[in-house]
């Protein structure tokens, strides 16, 4: 279905491209939000990625590679957003435009704060690899293709991100224990 839509959109069919936006837009927004941790900038990144995709689609030779190609545009747009405006805002809870999001009871407010702070200390490249693999579920080789680096580098980035986030949780737990035993 996607391939047919891509081919029609490539030929200039605007409705077909809108269908692609509907099909992939939510997932792209979810990925961009989790990389940037900011709903406004995630919206900017998604918009930039889709407009670039529309502009360049005629040059995509293999419609079956549309998804990887689109996600690569998205990640590049996230990098641009992250670098153009280094104003990281810690958010206790995401504030999307459409409807409330239920906070997961597994994650305490302290955990969330610690994880947000730790995530902000990661590079955009580490964040992207981590989100693409662990949230979006892309295999390592596809993640590598999307971000344009070897698989080994992707593994290294994910490892660094995981290590940083685990350390934040454990440090937070340690502080909590000390406070309780003081």
């Amino acid at each position: 279905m996607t391939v047919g839509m891509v081919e029609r959109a490539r030929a200039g069919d605007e409705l077909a491209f809108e269908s692609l936006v509907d099909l992939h837009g939510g997932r792209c927004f979810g990925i961009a939000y989790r990389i940037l941790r900011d709903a406004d900038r995630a919206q900017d990144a998604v918009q930039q990625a889709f407009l670039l995709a529309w502009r360049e689609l005629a040059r995509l030779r293999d419609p079956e590679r549309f998804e990887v190609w689109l996600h690569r545009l998205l990640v590049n747009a996230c990098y641009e957003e992250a670098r153009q405006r280094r104003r990281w805002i810690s958010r206790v809870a995401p504030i999307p435009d459409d409807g409330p999001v239920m906070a997961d009871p597994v994650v305490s407010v302290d955990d969330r704060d610690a994880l947000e702070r730790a995530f902000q200390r990661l590079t955009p490249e580490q964040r992207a690899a981590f989100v693409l693999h662990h949230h979006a579920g892309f295999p390592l080789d596809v993640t590598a293709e999307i971000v344009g680096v070897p698989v080994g580098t992707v593994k290294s980035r994910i490892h660094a991100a995981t290590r940083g986030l685990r350390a934040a949780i454990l440090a937070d737990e340690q502080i909590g224990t000390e406070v309780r035993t003081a």
Partner: protein
Amino acid sequence: MNQLRDPDVIIAAWLEDGPDDLPAATRRSIVVGMRAVSRRRPGPLPGGIQMPSILRLAVAAALVVALGAITLTVIAPRPAQVGITGPSESASPTAASPTPRLIDPSRTPSPLVGTASTFVHPFTYRLPADAGLVVDGGDPTWYQFRVPIPGTEHWANSIIVRRITGGRADPCSETSPATLLSGGPDAVIRYLEHIPQLIVTEKPATKISGLTASTATFTPHRKEAACPDLWLWAEEGSFTQNSSWDAIGKITVVDVGGDHVIFMTNSPTVDVSWFATAQEFIDSVKFE
């Protein structure tokens, strides 16, 4: 009671907690924006399309370079390895796989000549004709040029340009502390020579962009349990994970404004042709 919790469960729950629907306002912006965007065509741009002025400049620059190349090809004598010809379809940085050019088309005004403008020390380069190299990702600390294998998601060869800040106290450990490599480009080569798992040979001095540079050929060996992979630089990435223990690496180090900038490539065998191509690329680099 202090109940131990699994950090990975908490991280997974935190990661999943967030929006997964495209906001309606964003969708509207995309649809409205589509009408204002001039679409690229696979062939020449037809008349009448309104291009942004920066795109017109980029196209004009590309035309000038292309005309120059054609003139050279027609007029100049043609030594076997020098002629400038148009790149094959798969070699073009304008091919399907997106590159930094999609964000800013003016960065590489032609398929063969480009500028790594987002690198910490911007440089211009010329891709060797018919080598099949494409610009395949870059940021302020590294640029990657690769030769994709047509019809696959793999690549045959690559050249990595990186700014490095140091080596590692223990190159066998991903978590090793970094070590400073004080001094000129030679300091980097000396560091490689002190790594027991590397054999370093051929160390001629050279110049890149008029700057003093050091080069070396190195081969990893002695893979053992205590050293499953080599992490050469303070920065992320393992040489042996990204290539292999059998790879032959070539490195060129140049001092740019007090930073060590390295050009690295590797090959599973002594591929004289590829190393010559990589050297042609490196020799074309001019730091701005």
